[in-house]
């Protein structure tokens, strides 16, 4: 019991500590691909610490909601990220939430972020919030349909069970799983405001979505939101790796050795997926905002097709 709790606690700390590193790694690889030196790997940690030390500049009419939201977003994202299996499945509290709940927790975070964007009453906040909910209104159903596909294949929405099933030999190659994977990657790109849907490195007014919502944030509040953004990327990468690359994942009640193997495998998977993300982002261009619905519509249709195939024939 104590050991199990310790493992769960370790997972919570691990995601929190790894998230900035993942971002630093992606930025580094992107910079190297562009033949730049790039900032050091630990730059995101330094940024966070710097932000924490700075004063907060609050807009005149910002309400209490604006000041509470960073903590809410951070807490919801952290809880969601800690419930996705990283190095081990079946942790002590893994049954608290299944995949649908994890998706909905991220939805809660987005809900408050969009509200905070509208709180100050500038056009930037409004533009960000209205575009964010438009993107979410397509990404969320696509994500839920992906969850349906996975649940139909594995017979569960519980991530530990899904991961265990995907690691077993009875999965085989399935068309609908392939569709789900592609759809999941598309949703992950949109949800994390990455290129080609949004560009996390820009402050160009007409194209920004995520950055427009948090434009009024500064200091420690901004640090919380940035950390939540980092956690969200880690969450999606962990999700893809635990469902589609479940190898090395320590099983329920595993000993320290299996856990160590799981941790090493997890780090390797993170590195591989981060490199893939960086390569992809370097290779494509940002699209216009109103091309995003087409992009996400494709994800939605792929996910729906995958689910339909499963309904019609359980073996595809």
């Amino acid at each position: 019991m104590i050991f199990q709790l310790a493992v769960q606690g370790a997972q919570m700390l691990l995601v929190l500590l790894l998230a900035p590193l993942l971002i630093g790694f992606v930025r580094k690889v992107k910079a190297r691909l562009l033949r730049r030196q790039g900032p050091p790997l630990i730059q995101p940690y330094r940024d966070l610490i710097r932000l924490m030390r700075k004063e907060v500049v609050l807009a005149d009419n910002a309400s209490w909601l604006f000041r509470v939201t960073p903590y809410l977003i951070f807490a919801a994202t952290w809880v969601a990220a800690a419930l996705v299996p990283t190095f081990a499945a079946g942790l002590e509290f893994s049954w608290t939430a299944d995949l649908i709940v994890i998706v909905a927790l991220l939805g809660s975070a987005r809900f408050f972020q969009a509200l905070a964007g509208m709180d100050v009453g500038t056009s930037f906040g409004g533009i960000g919030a209205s575009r964010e909910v438009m993107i979410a209104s397509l990404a969320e159903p696509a994500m839920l349909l992906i969850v349906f596909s996975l649940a139909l294949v594995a017979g569960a929405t519980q991530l530990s069970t899904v991961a265990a099933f995907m690691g077993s030999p009875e999965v085989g190659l399935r068309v609908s799983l392939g569709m789900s994977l592609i759809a999941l990657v598309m949703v992950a790109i949109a949800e994390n405001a990455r290129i080609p849907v949004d560009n996390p490195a820009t402050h160009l007014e007409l194209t920004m979505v995520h950055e427009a919502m948090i434009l009024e944030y500064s200091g420690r509040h901004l640090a919380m939101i940035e950390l939540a953004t980092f956690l969200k990327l880690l969450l999606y990468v962990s999700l893809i790796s635990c469902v589609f690359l479940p190898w090395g994942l320590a099983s329920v009640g595993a000993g320290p050795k299996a856990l160590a193997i799981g941790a090493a495998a997890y780090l390797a998977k993170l590195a591989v997926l981060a490199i893939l993300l960086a390569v992809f982002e370097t290779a494509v261009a940002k699209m216009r905002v109103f091309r995003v619905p087409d992009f996400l519509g494709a994800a939605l249709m792929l996910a729906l097709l995958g689910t339909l195939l499963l309904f019609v024939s359980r073996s595809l």
Partner: protein
Amino acid sequence: MISTVALLLCGPAALLGTAVLAGAFSRRASATRLVYGAALAISAALLVIVADHLMGNPGEVSAVTLPLGLPWTGARFRLDGLSAFFLIVVNLGGAVTSLYGVGYGQHESAPHRVLPFYPAFLAGMNLVVLANDAFAFLLSWEFMSLASWALVMAHHRDEANRRAAYIYLVMASFGTLALLLAFGLLAGPAGTYAFDAMRTVQPGPLAAGAVLALMLLGAGSKAGLVPLHAWLPLAHPAAPSHVSALMSGIMTKVAIYGFVRVVFDLLGAPAWWSGVAVLLIGGVTAVLGILHALMEKDLKRLLAYSTIENIGVIFASLGLALAFKANAMPSAAALAFTAALFHVLNHSFFKSLLFFGAGAVLSATGERDMERLGGLIHRLPVTSFVFLVGCVSISALPPFNGFASEWLAFQAILQSPDLPQWGLKVIVPAVGGMLALAAALAAACFVKAFGITFLGRARSAVVEQAHEVDRFSLAAMAVLAVLCLLAGLLPGFVIDGLSTVTLPLIGDRMPVQTAQPWLSIVPIAESRSSYNGLLVFVFITISASLAAFFIHRFASHALRRGLAWGCGFDDAAPAAQYTAVSFAQPIRRVFGGFAFRARETVEMPAPGTLDPARIKVDIHDVAWETFYQPIAGAIDFATERLNYLQFLTIRRYLTLVFLYLVILLLVLALWP
């Protein structure tokens, strides 16, 4: 010993007495408090009686026949699990609304048009739920409709309200006609009007299909199923806000009760295709309802359209339950049915809460138009907080109650690959996608509703003078907000309570949830799916507090107030903010084309002139244009032609009567 149902019938009787007294004394200054106080006391008493019944012997059925109404038949009333559940919904809503009314009613400009009908409306809803024969049911149903119509007409000097009330009256009579025909079919050749007799007869497939269609028309028009919803967004907002809350939060649930009572109870074993019809209509209703809500800028109309969405979600779950029941999968049917009823309860909580909030905004500012509000979070701190709780709940976000019932619905959908029919196999995932889309759009809609109304800067001067509303209104809203949170944190208790409804109607129940460790909800098995709202809430609270503690311990405390960033333009006018219409613009571009045939045209000024450019948005209600206008046109055309009959001579009238008699006799003679 007086039976429970007879005791319960004293409630509506007392309410009717209150209505009569209110009619007589409604112009007194103290009448408002007395009437709402009496309604509160009676609803609370009914609630206690039902709760006591459920605590003692939940499975027991108690029936009574009163020597009222038609000669020889009498009026039958009955209390079983289903009516007990809906009595709780009705009277909990009634009690909280009356509490709100004690304060809100003070602002009423014409109390004598509201006070007599308000208790009558409550009595009508109670009687519908208790009725045990077709006659009592239809009579109570009509009574409920007419009382609510009178409340919609309360502010009858407004042209829009008169039109809304007229359309409501037409649709209500149409709905009752459909119900009348449905009961006629159920009664069969023997003409048995009692529900007990109908229950024993299994109608043929054709008659069963016709009854289902008529119930979808009759109960569906009251609940607001697309395309019968057209009256709802007109009538619900036209009434005073607490009555809007009753109509949207509670009366639509009574309509669902009617549907469930007939289709799940009286109609006997369902056919699998009945599930397809209900599922499809539910899914389409959910998506179209919330898309319409997103296009609205009137806060109360937005809430009314969102009711349509939630009704769609409930009907989709009911359709799923029908499909499972038809295929002898009782445990899955119990899951889907529980999800539907749970959502009924949840929607009655948060929709009443949101309408109360809209009423508070209305009484504080006199505005329903979101384009003239904004920044109310500074003026109405408590109202804005409880309204936010309602928004989070209705957007199906954990750990609040809306999420718990939607989660159950999704779990029920995941049971459906085992259904044998191809029609269902194709429809169910599509409807699942629609429900997911509706949930995501609902979140977008309530970001808009809260963001435009309460956040940002004031868009008109009325906001500057707004003051927090009275204690009674705040107490009513706070009660509902707490209920929203409790039902989300401890859904296991609600699910177990619902077993008394599912057992007799479905023949199975969900596994006992309150015995689960840590009060999780586990529909089938823990390895498949589980959700623990309580722990999610605790985890979020702990991590948020940890983060706040850490920040306050180690990070900078400095804080400076300054101007918002405006690209160098300081002091931009509040008009530069996003508005309700512009907020929905991206979604209108994505979905508007097929849902509303939306068109945007930009009128640019001629080069060299200084006129402003204008953007014009054209939105059509497709249901209104495809169904209502042609039907109204046809009726106009027919009446125009038949008008000729009004100006005949007496000889011609006599000839017509004679001819009619001959035809009737011929029909009788030729009838096999």
